[in-house]
């Protein structure tokens, strides 16, 4: 491209005010990174089970981890009561009881993957990201079994967890489908 044509192209780009064009013209300022290098950060689990890690756990295994690392805040067997800041993990009133009903795993969550994802990214509150993936599966299994959402001997892993049917799943309405 001649100098003249380059200048004309640059002017057109600038005049159009198109920021993406600027980025492309300059090759962009983002530094390429490979997915393997993002792996430690790549923790978001999707409801169909996408991105669930290897590992597994049972309610019995989860009960042991729970007693050691969770009960101090969430109470014995997930019953809460230690402080209003730390919710109970078991039970839940019917949502027909009022718009201020406390939302729980049993009465509200649409997908069991949310339980796994939240424990893994944020719990224990004082030491996030300290649990192994199998410990997270075990805790998830324990909490789901306390809520009678799985059997006492069911193992949770990348295959079984997304198949857990949550009772409130079909109770949601999308007020603004055009926003998606």
């Amino acid at each position, binding site marked *: 491209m001649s100098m003249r044509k380059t200048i004309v192209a640059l002017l057109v780009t600038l005049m159009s005010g198109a*920021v*993406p064009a*600027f*980025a*492309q013209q300059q090759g*962009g*300022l*983002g*530094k*390429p*990174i*490979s*997915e393997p290098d*993002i792996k430690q*950060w*790549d*923790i*978001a*689990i*999707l*409801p*169909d089970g*996408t991105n669930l890690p290897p590992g597994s756990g049972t309610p019995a295994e989860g009960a042991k981890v729970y007693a050691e690392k969770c009960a101090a805040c969430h109470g014995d067997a997930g019953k809460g009561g230690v*402080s209003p*800041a*730390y919710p109970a993990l078991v039970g839940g009133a*019917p*949502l*027909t*009881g*009022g*718009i*201020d*009903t406390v*939302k729980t795993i049993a009465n*509200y*969550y*649409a*997908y069991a*993957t*949310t339980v796994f*994802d*939240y424990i893994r*990214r*944020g719990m224990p*509150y*004082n030491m*996030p990201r300290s649990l192994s993936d199998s410990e997270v599966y075990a805790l998830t299994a324990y909490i789901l079994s306390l809520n009678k959402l799985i059997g006492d001997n069911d193992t949770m892993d990348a295959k079984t967890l997304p198949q857990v049917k949550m009772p*409130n799943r079909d*109770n*949601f*309405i*999308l*007020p*603004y489908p055009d*926003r*998606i």
Partner: protein
Amino acid sequence: MSKWRRRRGAPSLDDVAGNGIINRRALLGQGFALAGAASAIGINSAGAEPLADAPWSLAFGGITPPVQSPSPFEKDVVRTLSNPKGEFRNSHARTPHHLIGGTVTPNSLHFSINHCGIPNIDPTQHKLVIHGMVKQPLEFTLESLSRYPLVTRMAFVECAGNSAPMFSKEPLQVSVQALHGLVSNSEWTGVPLSTLLDEAGVDPSAKWLVAEGADAQMLDRSVPVKKAYDDALVAIYQNGEHLMPGNGYPMRLLLPGYQGNMNVKFLRRIKVVNQPAYTYFETKNYSQILPGGKTWRFHFVMEVKSFITHPSFGLSLKEPGLYAISGVAYSGTGRIAKVMVSADGGKSWGEAALQGPIHEKAFTRFVMPWRWDGQPAVLMSRAYDDGGNVQPLRPEFVTMRGEASKPVTTPLAFPNQHYNSITSWSVDNKGEIKHVYA
């Protein structure tokens, strides 16, 4: 003919609505028909004291500091805290709307909610990664983002739980700060998210992003790609300063008009995906239970709303006379078109003056001149946006969204979310102001 200057055609002080609502142009720099009106509006003609020089006019003043703070006389203009001792739980700081003016919330007073403390992020070490369904995953730093042509816009950010105490069946006797302190308005500067997504090359079949913060819970929310390409920013400045730590330093997602929680702070990662993640926050706190037990999901937009900041609870009226009823109005879908004000509990309404320029998805201040005659009054404001949305009256709102089934005993409670009905302040014959439902 008086020798005192008065512009021709100045609006009169005639009421335009009941109980002393005056023509909105009366006090807005256009003068008003004072002649013969002084007594009617209660202007005190008693003589003022003779003037004397004050001590601060007679001595050299204080040092000029590198970073200035408000006058010590402003020490009570502070955010109220839900967790003042820093206990091991979430923290909320609410904006004192009744003690500030204009439309821009000072950075030191912008509301802030933190679910696991405020991370102390070194901006030279912080990274933002965009990956997932993209042609080339990319990493950005504060330094690299700063090199893009930055854009600046006004936008309010509102917690979806703002005003939640008003789901109470009985009006709580608390200030506008306690009721509505979880919304603030700033000028934000950053890089359009669409620029960064285009650079990474988004798979056309991707419909969602998962945006994640660098805080200790790695708070994340699912955001439609549609919104990202509409008006989302990765914001790095707030009112000209780098972001406050409690507002997401060194970078945050800004989704104008969408629930505050979705405007992910300490932004470290955006993963482009084909389905929403149903994260903890979108699964629980930020979807609403409706009367009858059905629930909303992916509600996103903070609806059209207004509230009167002056006068309001805690700011009693000292004497009858002329006042400006003033407040803020905003809508998550567009610009404010009109604000109506009532002084008689909604029996009659007058159109308030709007102070421009009127930005979309941002605070607009409204002002309505009012002559208080010393008798009981109920002050209300009602906002209309340019998309035809109208702030609902309370009976309409309660029919649609319900009320708390249990008594609400603290303004820190969140019985439900997305409250956008009208706030009413009653004035008694002593000038005391109460919160009422009208």
